[in-house]
């Protein structure tokens, strides 16, 4: 009896539509988020993640409606990230139907936010998103970025991962900015490095392009694998990915 590897489709949402882009740029329309979430649920997705990529005030209200509409028909956990800056934002997202929230930039700006969320709602609601780029400027060779990878911080990604866990993060979403959108596979060294230090579940993100990309991420230590465009384009279904994992001896639901 143990938990199985989770397969998580991620929907990047802007103005109520799913968008996709390469290295966070050049956004293109990929469909209706509620409809896509429903399709992934039927394909056997273990969770669904929504990322509000613009997180403007106007888009916010649309995002709440999307989450509520999804939660009414998709009976698996929903994570919502993007623009979460306060415990009030978390409270609002949970109230409209989110089960977990993704926090990124706001935790970098004010790390105390992590503890505030964990104390009020429990660590299990808090997915700390890490947008990570390779960089020789920091000791580990991995630096934390913000604004979808456009801005490099001074934070060493592995030190930051350690700190967010200590402060109360319940899960780490490890997104490789270098690999994101390339479809060349996950950054396995990054996944392995974070797994080695992490006492909480680790989600590998960024770079999935082919069926063979998923099992290596699990072998590198990921508890869950997240992908976006390969699912939206219809190239792969969640069922395809699970079958490939199973064929490699990895337990899935």
């Amino acid at each position, binding site marked *: *009896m*143990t*938990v*199985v590897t*989770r397969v998580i489709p991620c929907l990047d949402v802007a103005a109520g539509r799913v968008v996709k882009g390469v290295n966070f740029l050049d956004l293109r329309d990929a469909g209706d988020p509620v409809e896509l979430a429903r399709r992934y*649920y039927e394909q056997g997705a*273990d969770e669904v993640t929504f990322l509000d990529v613009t997180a403007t005030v106007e888009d916010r209200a649309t995002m709440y409606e999307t989450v*509520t509409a999804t*939660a*009414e*028909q998709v*009976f*698996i*956990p929903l994570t919502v990230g993007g623009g979460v800056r306060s415990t009030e934002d978390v*409270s609002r997202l*949970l*109230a*409209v*139907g989110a*089960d*977990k929230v993704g926090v990124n930039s706001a935790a970098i700006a004010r790390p105390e936010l992590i503890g505030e969320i964990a*104390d*009020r*709602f*429990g*660590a*299990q*609601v808090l997915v700390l998103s890490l947008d990570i780029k390779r960089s020789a400027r920091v000791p580990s060779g991995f630096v934390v970025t913000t604004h979808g990878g456009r801005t490099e911080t001074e934070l060493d990604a592995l030190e930051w991962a350690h700190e967010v866990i200590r402060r109360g993060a*319940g*899960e780490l979403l490890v997104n490789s900015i270098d690999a994101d959108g390339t479809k060349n596979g996950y950054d396995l060294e990054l996944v392995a490095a974070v797994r080695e230090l*992490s*006492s*909480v*579940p680790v989600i590998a993100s960024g770079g999935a392009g082919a069926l063979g990309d998923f099992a290596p991420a699990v072998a590198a230590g990921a*508890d*869950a694998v997240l992908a976006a465009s390969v699912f939206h384009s219809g190239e792969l279904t969640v069922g395809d990915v699970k079958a490939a994992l199973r064929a490699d001896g990895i337990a899935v*639901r």
Partner: protein
Amino acid sequence: MSAVDPTVVVLDYGSGNVHSAAKALEAAGARVEVTADRAKVGAADGLVVPGVGAFAAVMAGLAAVRGGELIERRLAGGRPVLGICVGMQVLFERGIERGTDTEGLGEWPGLVDELDAPVLPHMGWNTVEAPDDSVLFEGIADERFYFVHSYAARSWTLDPIGAFAHPKVTWARHGDRFVAAAENGPLSATQFHPEKSGEPGIRLLGNWLTTL
């Protein structure tokens, strides 16, 4: 279950996730209302007590709507109650989280504390070991259910009393073995989230509805 769909109240006391629970119960065939209104809580065929967050915060939320008393009254009349996740944990005597020791509702003896496992929270889809006579798991005992928690009851110490039906305890394992579900007369509970466990979760809620 009677000819008409059973009525269920999902207790509204400020804990997240109430609407997901309500929608899943509707999908399972219930007529659902999310409220803490005393009369409605008392009149419904079933009461669901969800719970997300810290043990102490859930107890405080329950206290604000006199939830303990509402649950106690229903149970005294043999009227079904289902606790989910922290809504299950608070049914035990005590919870210890991050050094905070909090008194629970005490419907069941025992302690809820942190699991001993290399990776916490226990997050994801896991199997369970249900007793053969379980009603909740009828037809779905081999399915996986969605867990997300770091704390649990690692022992069950309520012994059968006199002529009462013996409690049915379902176990799961993450590091330690822990109570994944319990069925004890009118009081049932699951540590996992049936409302987030896809079709098997809906079926479990449907199984519970048959007891109302």
